[in-house]
């Protein structure tokens, strides 16, 4: 069944969108990631204009993270104070990101920027995750429990403006969380992702937050930042396609439920290796597009808005 998307102004198969949503949903349920980093490139591949894909994906992430945050709030695994500090950085970052996005759009370089961001971040995060999880896998084979690392007192702890985060049991400066939030905000606006795949490692390794509050807190920050991004894109670029978002969402929610069941039956280490491999595959595909001579060297854009 073909459906004409009112904002993207393209006609696509509704079942393809439901299927894509479902597929990414299964993966996000399995690995506990948002899936924005997979969905946005997939939308490019099926011919949705990049600007619409990024803005609509932000809208979809708000919705798909919403039920997750509710669940974490019930279990009290959200550090609201840390979330708010991250959010301050995040909103500023999102604002900056949209400004950069619109500027590069006027130069015709927005596709390049989005692709480069994907290649760099997916490459770095994917490789780190791959190495780390392989090491963990080898250790678990040998049957030695990984020694729990003592919290390091590094540069993060020597900065001013210290604040007590009771839920996380931390007493650290607010500067590192604000910076983490800022980076994630910029990425969310440019790449159309929630940024969980950057934020979660940063919270664990950089800020030293306990793992049990990390996911809830990052989701809390993500819904507000992506919500803000959605509003910025809707008011400056008019690129949020609600029909597209709802179709992806319905597929995504159903897929996520299936994915969670699959994920619960697989060992955690293997799951992480798989996720890392997946991230690297997406990264490799995008990198190839930049490196190989495209079959069509020319591209069309509307001049001076719609």
């Amino acid at each position, binding site marked *: *069944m*073909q*459906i*004409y998307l*009112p*904002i993207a*102004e*393209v*006609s696509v198969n509704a079942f393809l969108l439901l299927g894509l949503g479902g597929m990414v949903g299964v993966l996000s349920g399995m690995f506990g990631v948002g899936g924005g980093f997979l969905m946005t490139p997939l939308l490019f591949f099926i011919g949705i204009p990049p600007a619409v894909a990024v803005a609509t994906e932000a*809208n*979809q992430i*708000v*919705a*798909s993270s*919403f*039920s997750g945050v*509710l669940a974490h709030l019930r279990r009290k695994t959200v550090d609201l104070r840390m979330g708010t500090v991250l959010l301050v950085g995040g909103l500023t970052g999102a604002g900056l990101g949209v400004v950069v996005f619109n500027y590069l759009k006027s130069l*015709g*370089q927005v*596709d*390049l920027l989005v692709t480069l961001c994907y290649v760099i971040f997916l490459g770095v995060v994917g490789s780190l995750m791959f190495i780390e999880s392989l090491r963990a896998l080898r250790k678990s084979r040998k049957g030695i429990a990984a020694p729990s690392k003592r919290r390091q007192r590094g540069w993060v702890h020597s900065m001013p403006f210290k604040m007590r985060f009771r839920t996380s049991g931390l007493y650290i400066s607010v500067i590192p969380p604000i910076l983490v939030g800022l980076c994630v905000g910029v990425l969310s606006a440019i790449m159309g992702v929630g940024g969980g795949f950057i934020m979660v490692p940063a919270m664990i390794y950089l800020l030293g937050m306990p793992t049990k509050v990390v996911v809830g807190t990052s989701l809390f920050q993500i819904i507000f930042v992506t*919500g803000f991004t*959605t*509003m910025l*894109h*809707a*008011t400056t670029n*008019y690129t*949020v396609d*609600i*029909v597209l*978002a*709802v179709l992806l*969402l*319905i597929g*995504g*929610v*159903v897929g*996520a*439920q299936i994915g969670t069941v699959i994920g619960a039956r697989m060992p955690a280490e293997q799951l992480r290796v798989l996720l890392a491999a997946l991230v690297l595959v997406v990264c490799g595909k995008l990198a190839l597009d*930049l*490196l*190989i*001579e*495209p079959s*069509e*060297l*020319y*591209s*069309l*854009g*509307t*001049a*001076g808005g719609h």
Partner: protein
Amino acid sequence: MLKRLIVLLVLCCTPALAVEEQVVLGLSQDRVAITATFDGSEILIFGAVKRETPIPEGPPLEVIVAVAGPSGPVTVRRKERKLGIWVNTDSVLVDLAPSFYAVATSGPLDDILTDTEDLRYRVSIERAIRSVGAAMHIRGAQEFADAVIRIRESESLYSIRENTVAVDEQTLFRTSIAMPADLTEGNYSARIFLTRGGEVVSQYETVIDVRKVGLERLLYSMSREQPVWYGLMSLVIAIAAGWGASTAFRLLREN
């Protein structure tokens, strides 16, 4: 006095008499509604040639039908390899290019329309695009205009289909123009040319109205006119849909 009036009348009528053959046109639809399930459309264009005199001697009557979407400027960018990766470098602004352009003819276009007439009426795809403002410092500005044609042809937005207009007895003609699913809104012009020996002997123009309707219209106008409310509405709808679906799924599994 009366004589003068008659002379004047005759003079007035002369130009009308010069057009010996005129088009009487019919369209299967003069408006295309883009609904949520819009999947392209086919417009049947048919008509007859009205004439007061017998069919002239000489080369037979040929018919050209050209349907054009709203025109607008298009920025064409070219990729080049910089630091090992392919990036957009040069760009050329093509002043006016129709968003959709389809030509159907009753014979090979080169045979039934001379270059001069093509230039005058802008019938062929190459002539329908105007790029006078192309930057002089860029080599091969023509390549950019060609790229517009090539890309839009591959998206079936531009097409030339020769020998697809059926002409009977040099009087009746009919053809159909396929409109793809990815249409933009606006007034589409349908032009019909009658030619003999490459010269245009008559032309006729009408408008096909292409509009988003219903939900498509509502969402599109709202996103442009009330962007803040549209954004908020998108968030609320998406959250409600996501939360609703996951709750429904959970309830389904618990029972």
